[in-house]
């Protein structure tokens, strides 16, 4: 059902404006992703700073173009620009959820649909990300766009594939959601659309990483190897793969699309949720066995996983890491798991149309992606991009309801309330303990502090940044003449007699990595700036 102009105006304009305002209302420099290493990694390439060797270059082995955008947002020095732009972008999740809900449940009232859509940003965790975080919700936005295309235009396989492929480009850890949803899309699409979907994903995943690597190579000037998704591969193989992907894209573009009218329900579609569940379980087992997860987060047993998913008993994640996770009590994942189970049963209906099959598949996939991340990492914040899609999953299941309209409306408002209620208990202005509270000024370094820091960093010198919190010193100082290094290297490796060290003064136990590598601290001082603390040492080779 096409939206009226007024409806479009309300749905597409108000949520982004409110989100932008919320992002700014949280205060200056409160966006943790705006200040961490993403700022440095994007800045160091775009600014022309001499810091692309060794471990700094290693930061850029995964696609960094998104980080470049973050650096650009911070470049003009207006603190509100980053939160406002990010908030507005995050706010687009609401109209996209609304569009999906209207597609799935057209008989639901507009107010009910809008209320449900609003919950995509109103769980405590998603709300805390608005305007502050750069990856998960943006990845969720691409997945929501892909979901809308999957529901409305399944013949546009390439477009759906492109959107799914963009999610891991903006946030690598959102890749698991993209994999599960992508698998569902692959199962739900038909014939040529499937081929086009695969080429769409392949082209954006490959070229997104390849192009950012090429720009990096342009800066460094080393062409023998190209870092693509963390792997250093030879230039010949990179070019060969690019050619192959281009050929595949060309072939897929040449395929004629099938019209919606020819889309018939599949008789074997009931196998799809089973395939999704088996696929999810296999990936979860593989990740746990690969040992990539932090064992402090992992649910120790299946019953612990169930407890975390359904928020039963002490649902806090036992961790010593500082994060918003400890404060996060949400009901959305519980509802999502229930909706996914309903969706699996609804698949047994023989009368389901192709659209209804896609709706159910989408619901199961959103639920499976959250279960996968919770079981493989035990850390639901990594699933924020999927949690933002919970209203779509609910809308898809409610679209099946045969009950009276009044009951459906009551159900939607009740479920929305269940999702939103914990948010009232949450202090959204909260800055997680242990995280720096940059709230005294609108820039990380005041002008005189920037001058002081720059005076302590000799011209054309080498500066080691040791500890994650000091990486902000590179873009904050704005010094492009300095060679920035992250690893404690020997002076003889660098052919140097002097260097400067900037370190995190809160944690100094590992500073012996410099003294045992032939450096001597000549003079040290902790720099207690208004918003940030850096440890500074002038070093000489022994």
């Amino acid at each position, binding site marked *: 059902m096409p939206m009226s102009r007024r409806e479009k105006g309300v749905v597409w304009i108000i949520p982004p404006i409110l989100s932008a305002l919320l992002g700014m209302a949280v205060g200056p420099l409160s966006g943790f992703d705006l200040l961490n290493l993403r700022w440095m990694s994007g800045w160091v390439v775009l600014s022309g700073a001499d810091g692309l060797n060794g471990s700094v270059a290693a930061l850029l082995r995964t696609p960094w173009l998104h980080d470049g955008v973050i650096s650009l947002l911070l470049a003009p020095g207006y603190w509100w620009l980053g939160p406002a732009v990010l908030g507005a972008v995050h706010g687009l999740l609401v109209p996209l959820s609304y569009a999906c809900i209207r597609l799935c449940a057209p008989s639901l009232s507009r107010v009910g649909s809008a209320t449900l859509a609003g919950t995509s940003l109103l769980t405590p965790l998603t709300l805390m990300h608005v305007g502050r975080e750069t990856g998960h919700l943006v990845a969720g936005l691409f997945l929501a766009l892909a979901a809308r295309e999957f529901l409305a235009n399944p013949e546009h396989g390439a477009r759906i594939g492109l959107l799914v492929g963009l999610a891991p480009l903006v946030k690598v850890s959102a890749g698991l959601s993209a994999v599960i949803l992508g698998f569902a899309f692959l199962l739900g699409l038909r014939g040529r659309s499937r081929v086009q979907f695969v080429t769409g994903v392949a082209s954006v995943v490959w070229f997104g990483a390849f192009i950012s690597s090429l720009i990096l190579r342009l800066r460094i000037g080393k062409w023998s190897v190209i870092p693509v998704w963390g792997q250093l591969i030879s230039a010949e193989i990179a070019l060969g793969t690019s050619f192959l992907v281009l050929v595949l894209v060309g072939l897929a573009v040449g395929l004629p699309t099938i019209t919606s009218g020819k889309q018939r329900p599949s008789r074997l579609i009931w196998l799809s949720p089973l395939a999704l569940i088996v696929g999810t379980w296999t990936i979860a087992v593989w990740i746990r066995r690969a040992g990539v997860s932090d064992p402090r987060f992992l649910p120790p047993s299946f019953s612990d996983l169930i407890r975390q998913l359904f928020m039963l008993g002490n649902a806090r994640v036992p961790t*010593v890491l*500082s994060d918003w996770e400890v404060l996060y009590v949400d009901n959305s994942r519980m509802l999502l798991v229930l909706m996914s189970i309903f969706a699996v049963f609804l698949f047994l209906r023989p009368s389901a149309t192709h659209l209804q099959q896609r709706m159910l598949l989408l619901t199961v996939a959103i639920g499976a992606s959250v279960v996968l991340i919770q079981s493989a990492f035990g850390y639901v914040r990594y699933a924020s991009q999927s949690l933002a899609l919970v209203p779509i999953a609910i809308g898809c299941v409610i679209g099946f309801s045969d009950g009276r309209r009044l009951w459906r409306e009551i159900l939607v408002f009740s479920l929305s309330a269940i999702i939103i209620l914990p948010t009232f208990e949450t202090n959204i202005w909260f800055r997680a303990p242990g995280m720096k509270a940059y709230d005294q000024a609108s820039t990380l370094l005041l002008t005189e502090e920037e001058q002081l820091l720059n*005076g302590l960093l000799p011209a054309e010198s080498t500066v080691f940044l040791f500890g994650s919190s000091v990486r902000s010193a590179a873009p904050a100082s704005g010094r492009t003449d300095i060679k920035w290094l992250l690893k404690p290297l020997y002076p003889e490796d660098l052919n140097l007699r002097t260097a400067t060290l900037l370190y995190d003064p809160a944690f100094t136990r590992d500073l012996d990595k410099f003294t045992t590598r032939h450096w001597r601290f000549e003079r040290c001082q902790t720099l207690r700036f208004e918003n940030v603390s850096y440890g500074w040492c002038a070093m000489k080779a022994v």
Partner: protein
Amino acid sequence: MAFVPARKRFRVIVGTSLAAFTVLFVVDLRSGSSAPTASDTLDSLNALSSFLEVGNETVLFAAGNAGRWLLQDGFYHPDDQGALMSQDFASIRFSTGNSEPVSASLLLSAFPIDGSPSVGVTLSSSIDDLDLEVAGVELLTVALDGSSAQELTLTCRVGESQFDLDLGPDLRPQCLRVLELTVSLEGK
């Protein structure tokens, strides 16, 4: 795929290329931060020394106060109340200019204050050591050797966090928060 007119396609390609070119080669991410001269460096070093100077007045460590510059390694960035130790060893460095310091009194609190067990702490100067258990807010005084440049060291037994003790959401390990420093000068 929907048909896109050639002119529109051309505009999109040119627009995207121009935007990419602007982003990569024209936008100056941080103009104005040039390499320092020798006098800039000297100014910075002098500034560092001046930040450490204290007189007779009480120095506050809370965020926004100049006293934060006395905090050396081992503290988190100061918050509204003071500065929390981040590891079991931390130090405070200060200078008294031409005056001779006799003693230093450090006001500190166990963290968190309410309902937490006491924290074992050792406060040391070059000539004095004080060893005790702190529960709540305590004022600790140590003698100083009279020289202008002084360093106080704090050692504490790092305990569990507020979160571990079910007292709150804070995950930082329980230790000490330094609040104020008062230095007594000879003849004043």
